[in-house]
């Protein structure tokens, strides 16, 4: 126990509940209709290039990137565009447009542009293919990958960290991916190392996935990848999979406040993203589907692979439907996932899990300053101060407590004995601060 508790990496240990870790990835039947929001990633929304009545095929581009920090969107079924609707985004909670495509059930693919020699592609070609395939960070943050692969010239990247932690309870999609598609992940990593010109990579996996560690170690040792790839065993602790904590744990470095991992020469990438990069470069397939975990209060929890835009209700039906008292549906894990407003919400690129729960929110009590949140905070912040200041509409003071450093991991609210929704207060505080910031 260190004296001042500063050096210890803080975190919590929620029950793992990884009930699906032994379930093989299954493919969900094709949906009858998909709804594809134009804003499935962080950054500018994509711009639709199809209109009502257009016939589309699988993998056909239906929206192009709306800026540098943006990616195109591809149709995930073959069929006809029936309408463009307005819907609340399941990721950003903002109102945006979505393209609705009626599937014809044929699953016709567009002509795939498969490179003949994927190993010989130039850096520029790779970047272009990654962008055109619409790849974003599949860990949940959905940051466009091609942007991450092009750091500003003054920032030299020397290390890549592959995030296979999956520290959130319930979710096992990355775990299954590492077991079933380890080779592809490693090939994806090879491409990334080539693009970024670095020859050091770590694959961080939590200790509660011994089979995945074993598998990845085996694959790494058998491969003839150039450069050093180390599989790092990490303690099972939340939030180990957050970029900044992962970086600190593996490399012992801290990202400066307000900075990105690239400021210390590191890029952190999720295993799912690597698989997507592999698919795009070796097979020329754009990002139209992903692995996700369906767990919680469903009859048959499963790991499945499904096309984007599939209504969650169809996936849940495939898993046997929900238990009777379930009234919460979360996209993502229970710690950071976003509760959805309806079972019909379509999945998007960032949906790594569909979690069904019974609501267990309790009445908010008075803060007794027990310090649990301070102790739990992986960023060494004082979350209780945010609650106090937001309650009193004092937003300027939030900056004195470095609110921008908060990653909203939810460790504080998880442990709070008074059931205070700290994350919500923090989100309000951040939004208000943003609003008040001089433009």
């Amino acid at each position, binding site marked *: 126990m260190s004296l001042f508790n500063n050096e210890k990496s803080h975190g919590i240990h929620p029950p793992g509940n990884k009930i699906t870790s032994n379930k093989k990835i299954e493919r969900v039947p094709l949906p009858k209709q998909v709804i594809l929001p134009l804003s499935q990633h962080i950054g500018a929304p994509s711009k639709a290039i199809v209109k009502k009545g257009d016939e589309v095929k699988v993998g056909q581009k239906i929206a192009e990137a709306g800026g540098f920090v943006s990616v195109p969107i591809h149709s995930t079924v073959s069929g006809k565009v029936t309408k463009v609707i307005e819907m609340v985004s399941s990721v950003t909670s903002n109102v945006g447009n979505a393209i609705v495509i009626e599937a014809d059930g044929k699953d016709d693919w567009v002509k795939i542009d498969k490179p003949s020699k994927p190993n010989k592609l130039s850096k520029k070609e790779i970047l272009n293919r990654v962008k055109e395939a619409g790849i974003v960070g599949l860990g949940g943050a959905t940051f466009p990958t091609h942007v991450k692969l092009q750091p500003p010239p003054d920032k030299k990247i020397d290390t890549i960290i592959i995030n296979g932690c999956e520290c959130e309870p319930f979710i096992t999609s990355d775990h299954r991916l590492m077991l079933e598609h380890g080779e592809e992940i490693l090939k994806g990593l090879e491409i990334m190392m080539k693009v970024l010109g670095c020859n050091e990579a770590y694959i961080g996996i939590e200790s509660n996935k011994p089979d995945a560690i074993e598998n990845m170690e085996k694959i790494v040792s058998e491969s003839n990848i150039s450069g050093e790839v180390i599989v790092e065993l990490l303690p099972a602790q939340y939030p180990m999979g957050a970029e900044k904590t992962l970086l600190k744990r593996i490399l012992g470095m801290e990202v400066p406040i307000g900075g990105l991992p690239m400021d210390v020469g590191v890029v952190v990438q999720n295993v799912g993203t690597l698989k997507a990069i592999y698919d795009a470069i070796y097979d020329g397939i754009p990002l139209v589907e992903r692995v996700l975990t369906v767990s919680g209060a469903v009859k048959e929890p499963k790991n499945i692979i499904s096309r984007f835009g599939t209504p969650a209700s169809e996936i849940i039906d495939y898993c046997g439907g929900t238990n009777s008292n379930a009234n919460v549906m979360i996209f993502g894990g229970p710690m950071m996932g976003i509760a959805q407003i309806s079972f019909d919400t379509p999945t998007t690129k960032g949906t790594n899990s569909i979690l069904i729960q019974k609501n267990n929110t309790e009445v908010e009590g*008075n803060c007794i300053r027990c310090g649990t949140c301070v102790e739990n905070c992986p960023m060494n912040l004082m979350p209780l101060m945010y609650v*106090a*200041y937001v*309650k*009193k509409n*004092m937003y300027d003071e939030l900056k004195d407590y470095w609110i921008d450093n908060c990653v909203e991991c939810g460790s504080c609210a998880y442990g709070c004995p008074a059931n205070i929704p700290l994350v919500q207060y923090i989100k309000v505080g951040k939004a208000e601060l943003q609003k008040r910031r001089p433009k």
Partner: protein
Amino acid sequence: MDNLFSIFIMMALVNNFVLAKFLGLCPFFGVSKKLSSAVSMGIAVIVVMFAASVVSWLLFYQLLVPFGITYMRTAIFILVIASLVQILEITIRRTNVNLYNALGIYLPLITTNCAVLGVTFINVDQAFNLAETIVSALGAGVGFTLVLAIMSGIREKLDLADVPKAFKGIPVAFLVAMLLGIAFLAFGGMV
């Protein structure tokens, strides 16, 4: 040396101006809303107390006592303090604008701060010599600043508390002062 030390402790803690002697209450409650202003005010009070004590001591023993008109001390002392504050204000204002913004607005308040006048009276009443006067002035000022800082820290925290409407602001500050006063009783008998 021991004597000086005990005078300092006496003035700062045991007979704290605010909590035990009821001197300087107006600025104590008025300027204790923010820690930064409380500290600024405290520094200003220490400076003025020091200067006023020295000047008033000189005047009292060099002018009033020889002429046998010690009862004139009220008028003379307040005049001296008022002028000192005025001089200090002009000086800061002209030389350092930032310091003036931080301190200056509290300076006029000090003129009517009974703590300053009070310390000069106490020095004279206790027949302190010059060294003792200086220590006692510093002790009183430090004690005042300490309590002011504690109070402002507590009031900043109370700003975030769910204080009942009737107690908000000054009444709850009175309660804090009461509890602080009780706590400061602990220093009783230390000298």
